[in-house]
């Protein structure tokens, strides 16, 4: 192997990790909602897209400084998620899995359509403060967006890991997920926990959306990335936060590797379905994922 090939390989791995961080952020939001409310949120990718579009409006259309637009985006997506939770999700709590899944799927359509109605279907460039020139570490170029994505993902992961492990609210969330009725009887404000989990998920998704838009464009097809994050969620285990992160990174790297090395063999576009092939394989071998808990059911 020549030096160049090794560099190319590392380059592929690094950008795979960056892509994987986005998946990880989406997966993280999904896991938070799932852990607290037992709802499978299909609209996580759309929450991410809405975040990106909000930031685009503030930063590019209204010309606000990036940091302010970033913060405003988080506030607005938090408000949006509260509205969603109260109007759509709360009536579905306790309903069978099918209804809860389909409601979030319907929600994802609503969000997609609203974005289409407001912003249209064109691609937009998100104005961001990251320098265009990538940093070079040992001959491997890493863009600032990627670097920031890593850092933010790492920070968010640590925060939420500690939050669930040690904070009272986090423990309340875990208790609610374990058994909603008992948690309620123990004096945990279940409603607030449900809302909070949606707020957290939406905020995390928006962060992911802003970073994803920084490396590419703000476009409606972004929400598709949310669907591609499902393999990451399954791989990591649906109720595990470290699993979500690791699953995201693995899927991101795998996608990039197959895209880099198998694309010309299989005729292009392999990258887009790698994740789905992987997920079917996981289902056959270890459906509850790397870190997930295997569910034991009783009649």
């Amino acid at each position, binding site marked *: 192997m020549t030096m160049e090939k090794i560099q190319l390989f590392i380059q592929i791995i690094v950008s795979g990790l960056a892509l994987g961080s986005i998946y990880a952020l989406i997966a993280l939001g999904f896991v938070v909602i799932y852990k607290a409310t037992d709802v499978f949120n299909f609209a996580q990718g759309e929450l991410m897209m809405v975040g990106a579009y909000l930031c685009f409006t503030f930063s590019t259309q209204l010309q606000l400084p990036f940091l302010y637009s970033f913060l405003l985006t988080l506030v607005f997506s938090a408000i949006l998620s509260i509205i969603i939770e109260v109007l759509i999700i709360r009536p579905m709590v306790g309903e069978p899995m099918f209804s809860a899944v*389909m409601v979030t799927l319907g929600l994802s359509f609503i969000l997609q359509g609203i974005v289409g109605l407001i912003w249209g279907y064109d691609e937009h460039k998100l104005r961001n403060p990251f320098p265009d020139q990538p940093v070079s570490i040992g001959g491997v170029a890493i863009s600032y967006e990627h670097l920031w994505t890593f850092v933010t993902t790492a920070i968010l992961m640590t925060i939420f890991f500690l939050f669930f492990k040690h904070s009272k609210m986090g423990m309340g969330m875990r208790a609610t997920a374990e058994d909603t009725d008992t948690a309620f009887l123990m004096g945990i404000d279940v409603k607030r926990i449900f809302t909070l989990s949606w707020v957290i998920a939406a905020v995390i998704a928006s962060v992911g959306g802003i970073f994803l838009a920084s490396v590419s464009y703000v476009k409606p097809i972004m929400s598709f990335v949310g669907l591609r994050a*499902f393999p990451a969620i399954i791989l990591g285990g649906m109720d595990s936060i470290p699993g979500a992160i690791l699953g995201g990174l693995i899927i991101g790297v795998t996608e990039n590797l197959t895209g880099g090395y198998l694309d010309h063999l299989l005729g292009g576009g392999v990258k887009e379905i790698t994740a789905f092939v992987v997920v079917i394989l996981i289902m056959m071998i270890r459906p509850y994922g790397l870190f997930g808990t295997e569910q034991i059911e009783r009649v």
Partner: protein
Amino acid sequence: MTVTRHCKTSYREDMKIFQSPSIKVSLTVLIIGLLVFPFVANDYLIYIINLSGIAIIGAMGINILTGYTGQVSLGHAAFLAIGAYTSAILSSRVGLSFWITMPLAGGVAALAGLIVAIPSLRLKGFYIVITTMAFQFIVEHVIYRWDGLTLGDKGIGVPPVTIGTFVFDSGERFYFIILFMAILAILYAKNLTRTKTGRAFVAIRDRDISAEVIGVNLTQYKVTSFVISSFYAGVAGSLCAHHAGFIGPEHFTFFVSIEYVAMIIVGGMGTILGAIYGALFMTLLPEGLRVLSDALRGTFPVLVVRFAALQTVVYGLIIVLFLIIEPEGLSGIWRKIKVYWKNWPYTY
């Protein structure tokens, strides 16, 4: 004590298809109406009804898998695609007759269903949702990329259906093929639900562990359900190909899969009538929306320009509202209205 029409004294009576003589009469009227319909309606109306007929067959399929057996599938369009492409390729390249390719399309789709069923056997609930979704995207991808077989995004032209020298080249003529197949599909589905297999499906849906305990073979019946459902989808796909005369990958996207799930949600899960109502509703909906957005062209021009977005919002809203407000769907609403009038002036 007077014995009313609601009073059933045996299971056989309860399971009867024609619960009362009046249903026979109204069904006969309906069939006659359907036979006369193409001679009085215009081309556009026939086109819409043809689409609905195909949708009904497809919806029957997903209803068996999702409505009766409880295995949520987000990959129904993939099975339709497999059926459509099988039929299109066999009739345009090999030159086989539609009457051979249609059952073959069903068969190939059923085979695909068998393959998807295998990883699904250990799984349930959300995992099946993801598996079928993954299958959908993989099939879409293969159709786009396997140029040699599917011609990729250029699509395939499909020759019209013939019997001897008679050519089914207009919507009006094709209508009768669809009508015949739809009736066949409905009858088979209705009868299936009255058999041991149908009851096993429902048992699996309601509580799979209990079903296994009372002796329902989960593997066997889940696979059966997948196979029957995909056979339906394959036939619907084949009809779709020959009806349109042209198919491309854009006809069988993830969106279409969701549309089929929406059909049975809107119509009412796990009922035959529900699948019919839902298929009709979801086929007529875009047309209704088009009329509406044209009417509002003056005040909201954005609705016409971004029609696809409007359609997406409305689909989402319909799914959400039906699930929250009326989970039993249109057939549930219809049943409640009937019960109300039967018992009137009493509440029950």
